[in-house]
């Protein structure tokens, strides 16, 4: 395979795709690139392929045989590109044996096709017929079967999940130095990264924090879901109270689920370690991987640099996030205020009901109706208490999560800006020396590659996030409406039940 050395040379680049490729060449893993397709519909899958291929384009730019690059650029058919893409991997060696379930399904099919026997064959297939003109509809039979496969998988949706993580069973640990809570994390997976089908470990908040930092470090171009706050914002809440621990458990569960659902993050090695390692502390102490370079290189770009032109779409995202966070903050305040008012209302109701009881003790004929009203108010207060409890437990945490989410998003945006800034600074420097060197140096291109990759990752994550957000809020708000409806229904039932009691007596008289 002649082409093999080239990607390996280029993969030294600091961006995640390249890293994945580097890993690929060693371990044969390509999972971080592919799983996204499994969770998306066909168009999204195509887009994902597009995205991956764009990254490849950058990678291939300096290829001596830029035919592939050209071919990719001019061929609009995603399927053809996918073929090319997979074909590219096929030159990487023995990947097919150790692929995770879903990508295996896809790739194994492709790899068994004689069509993909080698990259050069493919390029010839695509390019040769008309001397460089786009291949267009030149998809062979196998690609339509591939399409079918993709569609089939898409229908299965839930079935395509191959990683399930739950957080439960919080336990309090009291040591001489500190008291803390650990949570049990159960992982079930068919992915090859996991030696066992099931794992169960105990982790504390600190470990989650470590995981998140690691993810942020190793996947700087991705949106990392937020962790619940370290301490509760409002008031001094008992950190070991049942409610607090339960709320946190739910938030941590959500955090891991979001990572699990992410096509790239779920394959992160730190995540794997977090889920499986017997002793996480050993891993924590391990030295930093080569990946930290990204963070560092980002860091040394001065923050004060003003961007030439932040691409419109990112500017829009930024603006959106500002407003979104603002509105969410308001909603959070309103929700808290409502709960506060409701609790005060509850306090009054608790006093109100018994007064009717007291009164009923004075009366003869009226005793029963008054007692009925008292009981009815009692029922209503119970219903109200359930409502406020539900809102406190289910509504507020989701709002909080999204407020934090918008913060994570903003920080990723900032990083993106820094990468762009770095690129622009370098480009400027080159422009000054243009007379001397007509060709753009490689490291500037690398920088550009990185920026483009970042943009692509971020856009994909943003889209995913928007989708999640829409679903989450639909559910959340519908839940709120439901809870209120239930509350009113309970009260309605209570009041309706006492009407006959009042009327019967009336008639009997």
């Amino acid at each position, binding site marked *: 395979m002649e082409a093999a050395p080239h990607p390996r040379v280029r993969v030294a680049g600091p961006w995640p795709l390249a890293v994945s490729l580097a890993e690929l060449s060693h371990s044969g893993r390509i999972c971080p690139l592919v799983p996204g397709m499994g969770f998306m519909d066909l168009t999204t899958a195509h887009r994902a392929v597009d995205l991956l291929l764009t990254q490849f384009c950058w990678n291939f730019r300096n290829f001596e045989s830029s035919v592939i690059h050209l071919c990719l650029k001019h061929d609009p058919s995603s399927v053809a590109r996918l073929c090319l893409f997979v074909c590219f991997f096929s030159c990487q060696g023995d990947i097919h044996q150790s692929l995770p379930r879903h990508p295996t399904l896809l790739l194994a099919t492709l790899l068994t096709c004689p069509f993909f026997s080698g990259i050069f064959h493919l390029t010839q297939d695509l390019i040769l017929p008309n001397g460089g003109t786009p291949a267009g509809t030149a998809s062979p039979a196998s690609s339509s079967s591939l399409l079918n496969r993709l569609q089939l998988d898409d229908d299965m949706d839930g079935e395509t999940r191959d990683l399930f993580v739950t957080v439960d069973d919080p336990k309090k640990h009291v040591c001489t130095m500190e008291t803390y809570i650990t949570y049990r994390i159960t992982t079930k997976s068919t992915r090859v990264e996991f030696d066992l089908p099931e794992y169960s470990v105990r982790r504390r908040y600190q470990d989650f924090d470590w995981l998140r930092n690691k993810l942020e470090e190793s996947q700087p171009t991705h949106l990392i879901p937020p962790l619940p706050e370290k301490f509760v914002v409002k008031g001094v809440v008992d950190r070991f109270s049942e409610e607090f621990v339960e709320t946190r458990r739910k938030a941590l569960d959500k955090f891991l689920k979001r990572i699990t659902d992410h096509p790239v993050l779920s394959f992160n090695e730190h995540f794997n370690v977090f889920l499986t390692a017997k002793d996480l502390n050993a891993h924590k102490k391990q030295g930093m991987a080569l990946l930290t370079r990204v963070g560092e290189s980002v860091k040394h770009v001065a923050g004060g640099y003003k961007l030439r032109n932040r691409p419109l779409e990112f500017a829009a995202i930024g603006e*959106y996030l500002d*407003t*979104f966070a603002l*509105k969410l903050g*308001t*909603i959070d305040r*309103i929700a808290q*205020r*409502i709960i506060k*008012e*409701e609790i*005060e*209302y509850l306090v*009054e*109701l608790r*006093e*109100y009901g018994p*007064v*009717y009881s*007291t*009164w009923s003790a*004075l*009366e003869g*004929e*009226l005793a029963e*109706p*008054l007692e009925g*009203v008292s009981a*009815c108010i009692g029922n209503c207060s119970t219903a109200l208490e359930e409502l406020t409890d539900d809102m406190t437990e289910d509504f507020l945490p989701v709002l909080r999560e999204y407020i934090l989410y918008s913060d994570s998003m903003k920080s990723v945006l900032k990083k993106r800006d820094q990468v762009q800034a770095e690129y622009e600074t370098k480009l400027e420097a080159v422009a000054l020396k243009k007379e001397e060197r007509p060709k753009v140096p490689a490291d500037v291109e690398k920088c550009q590659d990185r920026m483009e990759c970042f943009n692509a990752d971020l856009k994909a994550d943003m889209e995913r996030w928007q989708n999640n957000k*829409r679903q989450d*809020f*639909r559910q959340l*708000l*519908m839940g709120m*409406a*439901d809870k*209120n*409806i239930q*509350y*009113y*229904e309970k*009260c*309605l039932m209570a*009041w*309706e039940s*006492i*009407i006959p009691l*009042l*009327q019967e*007596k*009336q008639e009997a*008289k």
Partner: protein
Amino acid sequence: MEQATPDPERLWQPAPLEPLSHPDAGLESMVGEETKGARDEGPGDGTMTENNFSLKKIEISVSEAEKRTGRNAMNMQETYTAYLIETRSVEHNDGQSVLTDSLWRRYSEFELLRNYLLVYYPHIVVPPLPEKRAEFVWHKLSADNMDPDFVERRRIGLENFLLRVASHPILCRDKIFYLFLTQEGNWKETVNETGFQLKADSRLKALNATFRVKNPDKRFIELKHYSDELQSVISHLLRVRARVADRLYGVYKVHGNYGRVFSEWSAIEKEMGDGLQSAGHHMDVYASSIDDILEDEEHYADQLKEYLFYAEALRAVCRKHELMQYDLEMAAQDLASKKQQCEELATGTVRTFSLKGMTTKLFGQETPEQREARIKMLEEQIKEGEQQLKSKNLEGREFVRNAWADIERFKEQKNHDLKEALISYAVMQISMCKKGIQVWTNAKECFSKM
């Protein structure tokens, strides 16, 4: 009972206790000329039926309230609210009503009427007036006497008061009440001419009676106890209800903020926008629905308030009874001591150490003539006292009989009214729940489209 009448002259005028001559002969049949008779003879009097019947044919309404400015007795500028009272007589045949009288009265005149009724009908649980000043209000409610909502609620309350009096078997036949409805001018003077203030028992006397009565009637003691308890429980209830209303208002109104923020948020969302926007609208609807709900509830509060004040009326009857009992006991005591004196004089023995015994010892024996004369006088006094005691006893029994009859009537009315009030309260709550379900269902539909 002391009435701060602006006209002190009339207060001290010896008033004829007999009813005044009828001012309007045409309406004679509707007014009990036997005001006193009705009072004394109590309910169930056969001769009264006709009048009763006629009165039932009258419709009374307080149809309007108007803010006015005028000068009071001190010639000071004052603002007050006058209420238009309309009476209609219903024709026998077609049920059509014809306006017979319409006149304006102010609250203080209603008060005067009630004070008069209290004095003249001590054995009756006189219907209370609506509150003078808004009490048990929650913050959204104005405590201002000129507040249109308050005036409106008071208008309803005053109408209710007149209807209660008119439907009372005894009070309805009262002439002053009739004049209140039909004679705008000079009414105050007419009331004052009855000299009811003179008959009013002073509070001090009543208080005195409360502590000194030796053999109180158990039933009245219980009743008094009940009215105390009733008053305290209703006022507690009203206090808490006002707070409940306050909180409920808060809960609803804060939801209104969702309306605003949802609509603002919808501006930056694409797919979610429409759903959020219309859900916001429903939240606005939700927030504003509480105004009507609580306004309706205020009516329930007024119904409770009426019984809060009724408790005071009940107590007034008990107080009157105590007073009479006290009088009776005093008279009995007086008689007993006179009897003892007489006996002592007759037998010449002094059973107990007394001042008289001392004087006798110090100054020697009286002459038999003197003694005779004194015994005679005492015997006469005793006779008189016995007569008095007898009549007082009779009066007391009469009072108890009448009062108890009215109390029974009142109890029945109370049970009925309060049950009605509770039903209407429950109905209000049901409609509130239904409204709530409706709004949230609508909102849910909007959310589901997001």
